[in-house]
């Protein structure tokens, strides 16, 4: 179906073809689903939230609940204050969440709705909270929207006067499987931690035979309050967690470390080192062995990785992490792209690349699948690592693909697995070797088809 992508590179200034990003509100909605008994609320037209719920449902294979201000013509002329007021009343009356997390949309931003004053004027039941963030769809991408919502929770709820022995963690735009892996790392390190947001259990809940609009799990109101007094915050993902890191520093004076996602050996080592430095704890044998098993696998499979050309695409923080893993495996990254705009991504990836003796790679932010496809048509690669829509290129150019990142719409189980930590790296290494070896088996002459590889 991508026959229409011409090989000859076309300079474009007016159109994005086959986007490698989506808009801020869906990220905000996702973040809010990681807070306990929280109703994400989209302040805009009805369609937005329908699309966001559909996308999240397709990725997580779970219900994703959110409400909408259901703007009408009137609201778009006179402002959405009345809609928000009615929404908040209805939501507390009927669905009874503890928190409503409002995010704005392109429409409510453009007409100039002032959420700060709207929320001040609301009649909020005792013990309930309404928070908000600004997520105009024409700024950033779903990744920055996610960061805005996390920052919104901190702004409204974190209490400076709290004292906590925990480390606070902003996990970045990752899957429930990553959150579980993070928790495991903290547990093994013996370090108490609070994670905001925490979509494990809310978006990978077990089958119980009953449906709960607000499942168990998610960061609680009390925990978010306590974030204001944590010893330190580790903010993971340079883009997704940048805004909340700034906010918690400025509002509550909490010291923060803005770190790359702990993906790959070096990043995970650095992450654990940071925990050691902060707490004086040592890395337990269990984790050392886990690391050892990962390296063992890389050794066993090394001949399949080295010098294979790879294109990596998806969200900035994830792609940067995948780039680290790819380089550690011995792959040669040819293209490293994200649709999210921002030069920081490019310099981050260039820095990572400089540490390795590899041919130059094309690194680009604000790109799209069309451009990536054109590049691949001109200089092919051996492997794709990225999100679901990449499969169209994989098919058109007959290139094996490993799925990683957001969204994965066309396979099951991805959200359950981590990409972070030694375990996430080990899994990706296994998937990459599997994909390359499957390809070898498929293409090799019969006499070369061997069970010993």
């Amino acid at each position, binding site marked *: 179906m991508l026959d229409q992508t011409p090989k000859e590179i076309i300079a474009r200034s007016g159109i994005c073809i086959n986007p490698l990003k989506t808009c801020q509100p869906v990220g905000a909605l996702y973040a809010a689903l990681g807070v306990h008994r929280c109703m994400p609320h989209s302040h805009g037209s009805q369609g937005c939230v329908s*699309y966001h719920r559909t996308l999240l449902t397709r990725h997580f294979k779970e219900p994703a609940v959110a409400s909408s201000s259901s703007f009408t013509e009137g609201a778009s002329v006179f402002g959405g204050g009345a809609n928000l007021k009615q929404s908040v009343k209805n939501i507390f009356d009927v669905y009874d969440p503890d928190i409503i997390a409002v995010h704005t949309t*392109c429409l409510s931003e453009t007409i100039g709705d002032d959420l700060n004053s709207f929320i001040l004027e609301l009649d909020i039941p005792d013990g309930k909270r309404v928070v908000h963030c600004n997520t105009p769809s024409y700024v950033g991408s779903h990744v920055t929207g996610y960061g805005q919502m996390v920052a919104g929770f901190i702004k409204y709820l974190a209490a400076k006067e709290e004292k906590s022995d925990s480390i606070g963690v902003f996990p970045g735009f990752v899957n429930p499987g990553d959150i579980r892996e993070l928790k495991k790392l903290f547990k093994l390190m013996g370090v108490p931690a609070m994670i905001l947001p925490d979509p494990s259990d809310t978006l990978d809940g077990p089958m119980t035979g009953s449906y709960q609009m607000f499942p168990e799990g998610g960061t609680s109101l009390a925990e978010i309050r306590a974030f204001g007094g944590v010893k330190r915050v580790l903010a993971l993902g340079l883009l997704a967690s940048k805004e909340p890191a700034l906010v918690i520093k400025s509002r509550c004076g909490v010291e923060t470390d803005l770190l790359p996602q702990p993906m790959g050996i070096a990043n995970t080592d650095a992450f654990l080192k940071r925990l050691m430095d902060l707490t004086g704890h040592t890395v337990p044998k269990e984790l050392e062995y886990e690391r050892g098993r990962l390296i063992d696998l890389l050794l066993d499979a090394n001949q399949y990785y080295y010098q294979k050309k790879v294109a990596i695409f998806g969200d900035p923080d994830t792609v940067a992490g995948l780039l680290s893993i790819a380089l550690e495996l011995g792959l040669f990254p040819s293209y490293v792209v994200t649709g999210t705009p921002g030069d920081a991504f490019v310099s981050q990836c260039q820095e990572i690349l400089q540490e390795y003796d590899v041919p130059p790679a094309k690194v680009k932010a604000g790109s799209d699948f069309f451009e990536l496809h054109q590049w691949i048509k001109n200089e092919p690669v051996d492997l794709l690592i990225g999100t679901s829509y990449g499969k169209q290129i994989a098919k058109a150019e007959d290139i094996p693909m490993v799925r990683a990142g957001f969204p994965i719409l066309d396979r099951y189980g991805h959200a359950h697995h981590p990409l972070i930590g030694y375990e996430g790296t080990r899994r990706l290494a296994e998937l990459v070797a599997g994909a390359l070896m499957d390809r070898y088996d498929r293409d090799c002459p019969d006499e070369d088809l061997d069970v010993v590889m």
Partner: protein
Amino acid sequence: MLKDILEERRNSISQGGAGLDCEKASLAGAVSQRACVYCGARVVLNPITDAFHLVHGPIGCASYTWDIRGSLSAGSELFRQSFSTDLRERDIVFGGVDKLRAGLKEIAEIYKPPVIFIYATCVVGVIGDDVEAVAREIEKAYGLRVIVVQAPGFAGHKSLGYRLAGEALMKLLTPHKTDQKERAINILGDYNLAGEMWIIKNYFREIGLPVLASFTGDSSCADLIKAPRASLNVVQCAGSMTYLAQKMEEEFGIPWIKASFFGLEDTAKALRETLDILGTEAEIERAKALIARESEKAKAFIEPYLPALKGKKAAIFVGGGFKAISLIRQFISLGLTTVLVGAQTGQKEEYEVMAKIASPGTVILDDANPSELEAFMREKGADILVGGVKERPLAYKLGVAFCDHNHERQSPLAGFVGVTNFTKEINLTINSPVWSYVQAAATF
């Protein structure tokens, strides 16, 4: 019964009675399953395979509609790409017209499509872009059709979008208006999901009645503009296509009938009624033979499944009311009882028909939300839910089987062969051993 139904929603729910409130805007604050005007317009026009669908607005609306509907094409795959002006903050401040113009030029030069649809989303009207003016300018410069669909999400819900799509199609067709009619039909309201339009067209091919244009499943611009020459419009998805059918009747003098190609009875009825109006003796005979042959084949196929399906309880939640009605009929013929039926955007008459044909006590809902669906499915003990993507995980969470009768349908569900596929799918999901794990406690 759901204990906390919003007072304002009470009239949108009925149990075994008529008088349902519908065709209303959703409540602010409700968790609605509904989409917006843009979505309605886009899903109707999207299957035009060689058209260029440009979303003018911030990126989201283009991202979420990229190749999400399994409309198949025998020709161009252009419609499966996603194109957007990807408006950024700067464009919101200074206007998006320059970017739109640049984009249209690039499209006209790279792709040279016969028609470009521009979907103007929420903010475009607010920032005051004169999209029409740019469209005319490009039409003139490049000699192609550029049709603007003003589809801000806030203007209403999906139904209005259907109407806007109808208006856009009328703009495409009107220059080709003619008094010279052919003894041929157009098929409206089938989107060739999993190849369903092909199934319907094949029936008419066998019967010998020519089909001029299909709206919009597997259609090309060149096919669509033949439509004004037809003598009858056969409208399958009335929810999305009634407006266009009415307009084509007014403007081109083409009468129309509602038809449903879901289920044995309805498919046979649709073919018969079409031929009653337009068919020759020979065609009617061929149709009879086809209906007899295919019905028999389908019935023979269904037969062994019936004991496994008998007495199961079905819940239906789909987009349009007309489809819901067909599904109730289909379930009756498979021996299932429908205990809950709802639509996102059903019409009053449709809800009345549902009340009439469904068994007494069936819950009927307009624009239901997940809590309502859950409460009533639980109360009624539904074994299967037929719905779309947002309903799937809800059903699964309740341990209830699910069949996608929407964009994600696995196999074609239209026509006689659709009945066998539907039976297969229902059986697969409803009798899958996986449900036994839901009820059973762990054995440790």
